[in-house]
Structures are given as structure tokens and as C-alpha cells.
């Protein structure tokens, strides 16, 4: 699915990641941890083609990011659902249209998929809020709406950056449950989080591997978690 090979990334100041190699297999479930500022968000961006590695290779669905056109990256994003830490929406459109946005931009018939959309909103507990505008939502509702938007095209991979950052424990459990459900349906899931409690809770439900970024390198964390 997504393959990183001896990848390095540096901003103007200096190297943030170096010599990172990883293969995301279909149906796998990964956590990505590390202190804040260690490069978790950068790592995810490299995985969905928002950043191009400064050295090494990143391959998305078998294609090197460096050789992909902007349109090819756009098409690849339809197969990768992304949930940002601070989810952004089109603030002038109601939640239901925001969640359906990937269908709209892909040129799919939104009317024909209205039942799917309704089911998805129900599954995320957003049915009563379907007509609300994004600024009217609570933090947890925004996270769930972002997750619904990320999965509506039934992507192969879901990348979530601190999806439980702004929500309480109960809500984070619900979100985690949604992601575990998606993983059981065969989706590849990677969650960047520094919430160890969340990772422990996940390990009871799913076979999850934990990756840690430390000292610019990506390491497989031990079984101590």
C-alpha cells in the first residue's frame, strides 16, 4: 500500500526524519508515537503525498511520489482517508455535504449514495447534526465528521493524526472503536497519537503494532506497551 524506503525529510533548519523504512501491509493496524515535535505529522504527510521526501523514496500504491503528477496524487488521496488533528471543513456547507465532499469532487452521484451517507452519519452518531454548519459542532463531533469524510469513499488506507486530541476519554473510545471496526473491514489504519492509554485500549481489541519516532528514526516499540 504505502512503502517508505530509506526516507529522509528535512525542513530548512535541519533533518527531522532520517533513514526511515516501512511497509504498510493491507489490513494492518499501526500506532505512531513520539514526543510532540518529533515529526509524527510530517511522517503522515509523507505517507499521503503532501510532502515529498528530501532523500530516499516514498511509494504510494506502487508509485514513487516524486514521479506522480498533482492529478495522480489527487486520485491517490481518494484511496487514502486522512483525519487531521485540527479538522478543517467548508464552513459554509452543512455537515452532510461536508462528509459527502469526497463523493462530490470525485464526480460521483451524491443522490445515488444518499443512503450510504445517511448510514455513515448514523454510524458516527452525527445524524442529529447533519444539517449543522461545521463551526457549530463540538470538538468531538468535528473529529467524528472528519472520520466520516475520510471513509466515505471506502479508502484502502486511513491515516489519523491525533484523532482523539481534543476529546474526552469516552469520546476517544468511541472514535477508536470506529477505527477498529474499519480495520476489521480490511482497511489499513495508522493512528498518530501520544495517548498511551488509547494505545493500550486498542491493543485489547486489535492486533496493533506500535511505531515510535525517536532521535529522527522510526523504531518498532517493544511489547512493554
Amino acid at each position, binding site marked *: 500500500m504505502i512503502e517508505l524506503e530509506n526516507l529522509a525529510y528535512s525542513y530548512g533548519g535541519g533533518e527531522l526524519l532520517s533513514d526511515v523504512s516501512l511497509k504498510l501491509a493491507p489490513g494492518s493496524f499501526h500506532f505512531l508515537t513520539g514526543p510532540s515535535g518529533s515529526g509524527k505529522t510530517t511522517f503522515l504527510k509523507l505517507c499521503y503525498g503532501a510532502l515529498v521526501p528530501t532523500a530516499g523514496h516514498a511509494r504510494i500504491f506502487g508509485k514513487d511520489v516524486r514521479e506522480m503528477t*498533482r492529478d495522480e496524487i*489527487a*486520485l491517490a*488521496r481518494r484511496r487514502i482517508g486522512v483525519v487531521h488533528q485540527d479538522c*478543517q471543513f*467548508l464552513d459554509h456547507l452543512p455537515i452532510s455535504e461536508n462528509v459527502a465532499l469526497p463523493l462530490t*469532487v*470525485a464526480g460521483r452521484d*451524491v443522490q445515488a449514495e444518499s443512503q450510504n451517507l445517511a448510514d455513515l452519519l448514523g454510524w458516527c452518531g452525527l445524524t442529529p447534526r447533519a444539517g449543522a454548519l461545521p463551526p457549530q459542532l463540538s470538538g468531538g463531533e468535528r473529529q467524528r465528521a472528519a472520520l466520516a469524510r475520510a471513509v466515505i*469513499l471506502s479508502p484502502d488506507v486511513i491515516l489519523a493524526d491525533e484523532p482523539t486530541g481534543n476529546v474526552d476519554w469516552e469520546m476517544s473510545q468511541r472514535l477508536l472503536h470506529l477505527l477498529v471496526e474499519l480495520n476489521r473491514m480490511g482497511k489499513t489504519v495508522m493512528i498518530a497519537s501520544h495517548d498511551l492509554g488509547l494505545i493500550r485500549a486498542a491493543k485489547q481489541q486489535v492486533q496493533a503494532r506500535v511505531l515510535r519516532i525517536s532521535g529522527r528514526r522510526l523504531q518498532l516499540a517493544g511489547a512493554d506497551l
Partner: protein
Amino acid sequence: MTVRSFAREMLSGDASADRVVPPSGFTAHLTLFAAGVMTFLAVFALALSLATGRLAERWGEDLAHASTLRISAPADQLGAQTEAALRVLETTEGVASARALTAAEQQALLAPWFGPDVPLEGLPVPQLIEVVETDDGFDAAGLRLRLATEAPGAVLDDHTRWRRPLVAAATRLKTLGLLSILLIGGATAAMITLAANAALSANAQVIEVLRLVGAQDRYIARAFVRRFTLRTFSGAVVGLAFGVVAILFLPAAQDQAGFLTGLGFQGAQWLWPLLIPPVAAAVAYAATQRAALRVLGALT
């Protein structure tokens, strides 16, 4: 892109692509206003070009085929010299016809300068002969030589002397009018580009969200391009209406002022200004498309 698919995209539209960009009231009105003003100006520049074009053509044609022969001689020789000159003209190649003006006609020509009350009969007025040339024209130098021997008092005026600068001035004015239209088009493109850039940066978050969920540049650009193209078109239609009404209400050119031919359109020329709104829309389309793809290309 064919004209038809372009028109379909603009008119039927992709309502969803339009909706993803939030509506913008104030700047929309500014674009409308600017497009209207530019069209209004373009209508006048066009009218100027066409009118001066007509003028140059008319002067060129009418005057090229007419000359005047003026015979100044003592009163007792005037008749004989006039007849001699007419005989010369009849045998000159390139002269279609030659006719001595009657006394009444000459008087009518002079009346505007002297007033109707001055008795011209008593004045030694030269005799005028109107010469109409064939399309090929005659050899003016040869004719002058022959006239010098047959009718020494005859002076040939083939009008070239004062026709040329007038035609040149009219042609220059026409060129200036066309240049103005080009400049108006360029200014419109610049203005739309600025407005589109402003709209693109104001909607940076929208673009980021669309990009994240897999929208291709073409889709994102279309929302902006369609909006600016339609706005420019409607602004241009309003400007065209005002411009045409203004031209219609110009005081009609009187017979006395026929020299100025009247600024405006004649006959089929009325179709020309109708081209302005589609052309303005095409300019807006190209300008927005370029601006949008450039801005989007710079993003990740």
C-alpha cells in the same frame, strides 16, 4: 475545448463545483462593475474606429476620382479657353467626363463665403470645370503640359494635396481606436487576474480541504473560473446596454456636419459591439484559468 462544450460548462454548470467556494458578495459586485465599465469604454472605442474607418474610406473614394480645373482669364478670353480646355479633357485618356459648372452652380458654391446678398455677377470669378476620372486615373503632369499650351489660364487641382493628410489622419484615428480596444482587453485581463488571485487566497482553506479529499486542480479551478467568467459576461452585457443607448442618443449628424460623419454604427456594424461580452467572457476565462492553475500549482 470546443465552443459548445465551453458554453455547456458555463451555462449548465456544475452546481456542486460552484457551491464548494463560499459566495462573495462585495468583490462579485466590483468585478461586475469593472467589466461593465470596460465594455462601455470598448463600445466607444469601437464606434470611433468604425466611424473613422468609414470617413477614411469615403474621402479616399470620393476624392480620388474627382479633380477640378480652374480657369482664370480676362473676361473676353474665358469662354474660348474653357472650350479649349474641355476639348483637351475629352481627348485625355483616363477622364470619364468633364463638365463646366454653370454660373448658378458657381454662385451656390460661393454663397457660404460671401453671403447670398453679394452680387457675384460683377466679380471676375474663375470658371470651374468638374473632372471625373476613370478608375485608372489620368496622367496629371501630361495633362498640365497640354493645358499650358491650349488654355494658359487653366490650373489643375487633383485634390491629392489636401486629401492625403485627411485620409492619413482618419486612418491613424482608426488605428488608435483599435489599439484602445486591445488595451481595454488587456486591462480587463489584468483586473480579473487580480480579482481571481484575491479570491484564491481568501479561499485558501477551501482549497486545502478540497485537495485533502482528492479534488484535482481542474475541479478546484472550475469553481473559480466559472464564477468569474459569468460575472464578467453579465457585467459586460450591462455595460454594452449602457454604451449602445449612449450612442443611440448622440445627436444625429446633420447634413451640414456630414464632414464628421457621426460617431456610431451603421447597418451591419451594429453586430460588432455584440461581440464584446463573449470576448470579455473569454478573456476572463483565460485569465482566471491561468491564475487558478498557477496558484494551485504552487501548493502541495
